[in-house]
């Protein structure tokens, strides 16, 4: 996959002395969905702000489709659409006027058919003449997405797009993001809903205290860094873990009906065969068993927590 955004040695220290980014290097591939995860204050919004022209970098370079963001700002910005985290929208105009304003601002000729399509895709066409202040919070957020798409960008930044929206709207936003990806739009999203990244993103980048901690394909990250848990349902409940099994890393469930065993799928020996043999030796009979994969959220907490 060819790179559409290249970040090299990017740092940002604000006037007050706070360093938000520390020499970040990152490549974003064309057409991918990239999830940037990190706790509050990690540097996500600063990084997006620099790429979009809202924040001046202290050092480093960023190129968008081969163009430098400072020297060739017209070329880079015309390729980018931004949906900011805050609800920042002119409340006094109509939906259609707001979207047309965004298109004009990016130097694009009026195209009523395209604007209509964007509004229909976001289920806003019925509200095209409504004043924005009369819309619900979820609709306002969709108007912000429509504004970001008004100039037909190749890259879309979504900074916490589903923060504070209900489940139904979140699902519909995911559908919109999916359709954009099908059209070849590169999407970079930040989110606090880790399951969102898990389901949507091709790759995940974790940032903490201004540094990129890990960048990996979502599946590979979960495979590489995630642990699996084997749960064994016992035929007879236990009051305590037998002494002979205490050294095996087993954990007895609170109700005494199950045993949990965490193992690493990447390890040379998972220890499952030995465990089953020892259970047999201990005279424990197993009624059922299941395995589960640790979630991206658990991996994220492990990464960020370890660095904190």
């Amino acid at each position: 996959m060819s790179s559409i955004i290249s970040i090299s040695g990017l740092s940002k220290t604000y006037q007050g002395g706070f360093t938000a980014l520390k020499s970040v290097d990152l490549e974003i591939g064309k057409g991918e969905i990239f999830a940037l995860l990190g706790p509050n204050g990690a540097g996500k919004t600063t990084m997006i702000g620099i790429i979009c022209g809202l924040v001046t970098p202290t050092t480093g370079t960023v190129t968008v489709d081969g163009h430098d963001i400072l020297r060739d700002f017209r070329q880079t910005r015309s390729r980018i659409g931004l949906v900011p985290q805050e609800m920042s929208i002119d409340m006094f105009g109509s939906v259609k006027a707001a979207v047309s304003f965004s298109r004009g601002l990016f130097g694009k000729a009026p195209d009523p058919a395209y604007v209509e399509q964007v509004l229909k895709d976001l289920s806003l066409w019925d509200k095209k003449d409504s004043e924005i202040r009369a819309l619900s919070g979820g609709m306002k957020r969709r108007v912000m997405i429509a504004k970001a798409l008004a100039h037909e960008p190749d890259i879309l930044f979504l900074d916490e797009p589903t923060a504070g929206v209900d489940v139904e709207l979140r699902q519909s936003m995911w559908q919109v993001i999916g359709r954009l990806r099908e059209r070849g739009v590169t999407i970079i999203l930040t989110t606090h809903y880790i399951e969102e990244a898990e389901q949507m993103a091709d790759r995940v980048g974790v940032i903490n205290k201004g540094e990129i901690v890990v960048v990996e394909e979502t599946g590979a990250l979960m495979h590489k860094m995630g642990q699996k848990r084997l749960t064994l349902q016992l035929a007879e409940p236990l009051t305590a873990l037998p002494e002979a099994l205490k050294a095996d890393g087993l954990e007895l469930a609170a109700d005494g009906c199950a045993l949990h065993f965490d193992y690493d799928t990447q390890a040379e020996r998972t220890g499952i065969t030995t465990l089953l043999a020892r259970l047999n030796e201990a005279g424990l009979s197993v009624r059922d068993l299941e395995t589960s994969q640790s979630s991206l959220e658990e991996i994220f907490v492990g990464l960020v927590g370890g660095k904190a």
Partner: protein
Amino acid sequence: MNFRAIATIYHAEMARTGRTLMQSVLAPVISTSLYFVVFGAAIGSRIEEIDGVGYGAFIVPGLVMMMILMQSVSNAAIGIYFPKFTGTVYEILSAPVSAFEIVIGYVGAAATKSLILGVLVLATAAFFVPLEVQHPFAMLAFLVLTSVTFSLFGFIIGIWADNFEQLNIVPMLIVTPLTFLGGSFYSISVLPPFWQTVTLFNPVVYLISGFRWSFYGVSDVDVGISLVAILGFFLACLAIAWWMFRTGYRLKN
């Protein structure tokens, strides 16, 4: 040049005025016209002529200039301050638009509004007092230059202001007193010599004097000096606006 972006900003600003016609157009025209009624038609008839011009007609250029200064500053200031306040300025800053194009869009719209108001006030004044314009091109030049320069000044205030109080403090506490003391209602020749000298440090004196000259051919200071003064202020404002965008002062970071 991103002409389409300039036009978009310009039209959006003009549309904002269209949504608030009462406040943006009617209110300043009526409040300025009240000066003509009170000082021109009512009290003016009891005041003797100044430099051979009836008092009612004498104050018209000063009042038009006062209204243009106030409206240019406040319109341009709110034009850029409001997007900052609501956060929508992100869209302007992330668009493929240069600082110069942003300034043309916002300042152009604010100056246009002031010019429209200036023409409306002049037309209204003609109902109450006899008006003559000896140098129409000079009058137009002063109107345009003043509108553009003070719109640029207002734009700078809009970027500088961190809250609504700061937004109003410069127009109310600086522009208004300077205008009242800048010869809107009198010729500075009636002041004692010391105060005449002090008044020459007031930049508004040069605007009003030059503008009044375009009407009646009389002025407190040489018209050439007036033009140089306003051009100098324009260039100073342009330099400050350029510096603000270059450094991202109160816009970025």
